[in-house]
């Protein structure tokens, strides 16, 4: 881990200057202010048509300054850290408090926690493009070798390393460096006059040591998995039916059906369908749902969130009862609870808001095979792309890339490209069984609520009694 001096040198600031900036930001009567310094270096390579024929690197640097007056926010940023420009941004953000009466709100310090969830053995910044070229070419070769129907392979490798220094008017000073590496392979297959495609990705907060034979084998194997079924897949008959969510990426259900609705900004404003349901039984007993910022190397994890609050594991649902929303500092002060480390932002240009990290359901005790066997007629789904939710109404959807019909307790015809729709509270109440096989999906999940942030999701095999499935 880098020392404080690494960050103060990088951002060319001293402790005295940090104090001057917070004092300026609060000069018009703000209750709280924070400074978020960020420097990110991005790098990417693209293999197409057998050649790594494009790539590049990108640099982003700046500081965001936020002032809170009660729940009201003033925000400004500077793309350099010259004191003159930072003071100008601090003054712009301070305007939110001008002429405002006392809010009566108190922002309190949080307890620090030392953790290193993503140590880098090999820093991406120390690597040159040529270090990754063999991996990309070998991966392409390995994928082509798996199936003679493959006609195109596109592989993207990207990484980023972000240095963050945070300081606030409570004199809390935190800093860390966040790595992220991602590899995505998109494969096009042709069989007769039919074409199918499949995309596989893996993303981790880790160093360049992730690039190696194990990752290559995993992606190459996954890239061709289930392709025979894709060529045979049908559109099921649409309508309401039993849905078995396969372990892993099915966690998108939690992300859309409850995660967003549990983000405390929506609840503070009364907009969420779960706004008045804290402490109530919203799932069957025995169901635990977590939003976790502490899974080692996970894409959604953070030693700290973007408000300097240590990452933690937060139970949203315990034994079926809604026990916590996901809080940033604003909502935590409003509800009179501790922030949960969910204050996140896309970069220094944005103020933090409550966001998910790694959202998953903990394992139950049912055998996954028995869950499928218990369904007379329904559908099993295991690959997904995007999802969406309407916060107030609770209506959510997610798009299924592949799955199977369930007939008389057995997986039968493969299905693909169907949207599933449901209502959050109803879907949670309709959970009939939870498997003992929790798996967290390590794809490049990105959540787009106002700003884009990396997340992940996971789930054991789960049976829901009724969701609406799109079909013929």
């Amino acid at each position, binding site marked *: 881990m880098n020392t404080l001096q690494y960050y103060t040198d990088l951002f060319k600031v001293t402790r005295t200057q940090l104090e001057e900036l917070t004092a300026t930001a609060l000069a018009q009567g703000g209750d709280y202010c924070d400074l978020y310094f960020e420097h990110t270096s991005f790098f990417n390579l693209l293999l197409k048509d057998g050649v790594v024929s494009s790539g590049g690197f990108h640099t982003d640097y700046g500081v965001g300054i936020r002032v809170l007056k009660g729940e009201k926010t003033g925000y400004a940023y500077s793309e350099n850290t010259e004191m003159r420009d930072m003071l100008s941004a601090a003054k712009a953000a301070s305007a939110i408090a001008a002429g405002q009466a006392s809010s009566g709100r108190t922002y309190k310090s949080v307890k620090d926690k030392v953790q290193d969830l993503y140590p880098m053995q090999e820093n991406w910044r120390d690597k040159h493009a040529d270090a990754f070229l063999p991996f990309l070419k070998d991966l392409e070769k390995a994928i082509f070798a798996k199936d003679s129907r493959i006609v195109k392979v596109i592989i993207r490798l990207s990484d980023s390393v972000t240095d963050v220094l945070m300081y606030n008017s409570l004199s809390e000073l935190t800093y860390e460096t966040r790595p992220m590496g991602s590899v995505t392979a998109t494969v096009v297959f042709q069989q007769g006059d039919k*074409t199918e*495609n499949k995309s596989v990705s893996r993303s981790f907060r880790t160093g360049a040591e992730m690039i190696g034979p194990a990752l290559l084998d995993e992606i190459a194997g996954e890239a061709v998995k289930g392709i025979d079924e894709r060529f045979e897949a049908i559109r099921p008959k649409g309508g309401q039916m039993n849905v078995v969510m396969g372990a892993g990426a099915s966690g998108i259900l939690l992300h859309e059906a409850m995660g967003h609705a549990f983000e405390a900004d929506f609840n503070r*404003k009364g907009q969420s369908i779960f706004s008045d349901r804290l402490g109530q039984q919203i799932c069957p007993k025995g169901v635990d749902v977590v939003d976790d910022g502490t899974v080692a190397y996970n894409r959604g994890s953070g030693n700290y969130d973007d408000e300097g609050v240590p990452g933690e594991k937060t139970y949203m649902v315990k034994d079926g009862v809604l026990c916590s929303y996901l809080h940033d500092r604003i909502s935590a002060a409003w509800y009179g609870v501790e922030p949960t480390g969910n204050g996140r932002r896309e970069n220094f240009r944005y103020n933090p808001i409550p966001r998910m990290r790694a959202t998953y359901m903990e394992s139950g005790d049912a055998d996954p095979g028995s869950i499928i066997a218990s369904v007379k007629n329904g559908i099993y789904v295991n690959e997904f792309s995007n999802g969406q939710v309407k916060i107030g*109404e609770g209506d959510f959807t997610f798009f299924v890339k592949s799955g199977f019909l369930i007939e008389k307790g057995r997986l039968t015809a493969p299905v*693909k490209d169907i*949207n599933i729709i449901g209502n959050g509270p109803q879907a949670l109440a309709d959970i009939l069984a939870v498997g003992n096989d929790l798996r967290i999906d390590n794809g490049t999940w990105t959540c787009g609520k106002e700003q884009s942030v990396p997340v992940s999701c996971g789930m054991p095999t789960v049976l829901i009694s009724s969701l609406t499935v799109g079909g013929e």
Partner: protein
Amino acid sequence: MITTEEIQLAKHCISHATASGATAARVSLNKSVTDACTIMNGELDKVSHSADRSIYIYLFVDGRYGTFSTNRLEEKELEEFISKAVEMVRMLGEDRCRRLPDQDRTEKNASSGRELGLFDDAYYSIEAEERYRNALRLSIYEKIVQNKEFSLISEECEYSCTADDMFLADSNGLECRHSETAFGTFSEMTIKDNEGNKYSGYWWQTSPVANEIDFEECGRKALERAVSQIGPKKRRSGRYRMVVDTTVASRLVTPLLTALNASSIQQKMSFLDNSLGMQVFPEGLTLMDLARTPGKNGSRLFDTEGVATKDTAIIENGVVKQYFVNTYLSEKMGIPPTVEDISRPCIRPYLKEIALQDKEKEVSLEDILKASRNGIFVTGFNGGNCNPVTGDFSFGIEGFAINEGKIGHPVREMLITGNIMELWNHLTAAGSDARASSRWQIPSLAFEEVTFSA
């Protein structure tokens, strides 16, 4: 916005790149300033100020290619950045198809950035106090009369002013500039009915001209849209006529434009491969790119390579007239280049039942609903996707029943499923009601024989 010194800096980047070994280079310097003011339940909730400045550098080095960007614009730092970038490009694989566009294809008349009349100098005179007042004008919180049907949970509205400026230059002598302002309003209402069910509705407007904003409309429309959703009923699965409101109809056009892009076709990821010059859509469908309309959102004189745009048909009377082919893909695929992508798509009016003898005839939403008689009026899409290879789609929808040409009760938790080419081949109407403030001029559309699941 962009200063003379910054333009010199951008040009210096090109010189430094070629001096460092680049065969050719293109630079895009971008500046953007946005100020926004948000009102929550009638009171100030957020003020924000953002000012961005970045430079994108596209390097061509001995048949190799890379793209780079930074917001660190000190000259010495930039020079080091570019030198490292040239070294990196040398490590990549050779692809001789990478090159700058020919000079005879690039725009020559975009020197000031103001040619399309998209920059309103009123931007400079709108100070923080006026932004706050304008944001307050959007709020109807105090005016909403609580009634027996609903209670208001929250109102959020925002007024924003943005100025964007872009300078594009390359080592072939290209120099283009595009400047525009955007004044935006947004309002979102969340309400609760007597049974505690929540509904939300939103409305927005964007204009390059400050005084074109209608401050009265935003909150009223948002509230109307929320209230109209009270009391949804289930509708049976089946095949219905579908009318899609202009505010969301672009969702059905996006898969077509993606499929018409040469990058999709070259990678065998397009359901419109081999369709150029073919009648693959119904005769009533004409999709134009009206890129050079002065004063309209989305207009631009040049694309990201500096290639001059033109007003042209993309699909004309159902025939595919143009793919989007940039310089690289033109070389790679051996087909003529066009522009990189669409600027301002526009669908011409059409009514299947009534031949439009008069090409200038207006087709209203009422005309379309009347012609559709019974079906479902879609006012929102909720998730879903379209397979880029096969065109198979499945989208969540919300909207209203159509009964004898009139809008009926709201419907929810429904899905439409099918193939996007089949859907477009069941087009029965396209209106002339696209919102003037939209970049995408996609009007209300109607289709027959659409499969709904519920």
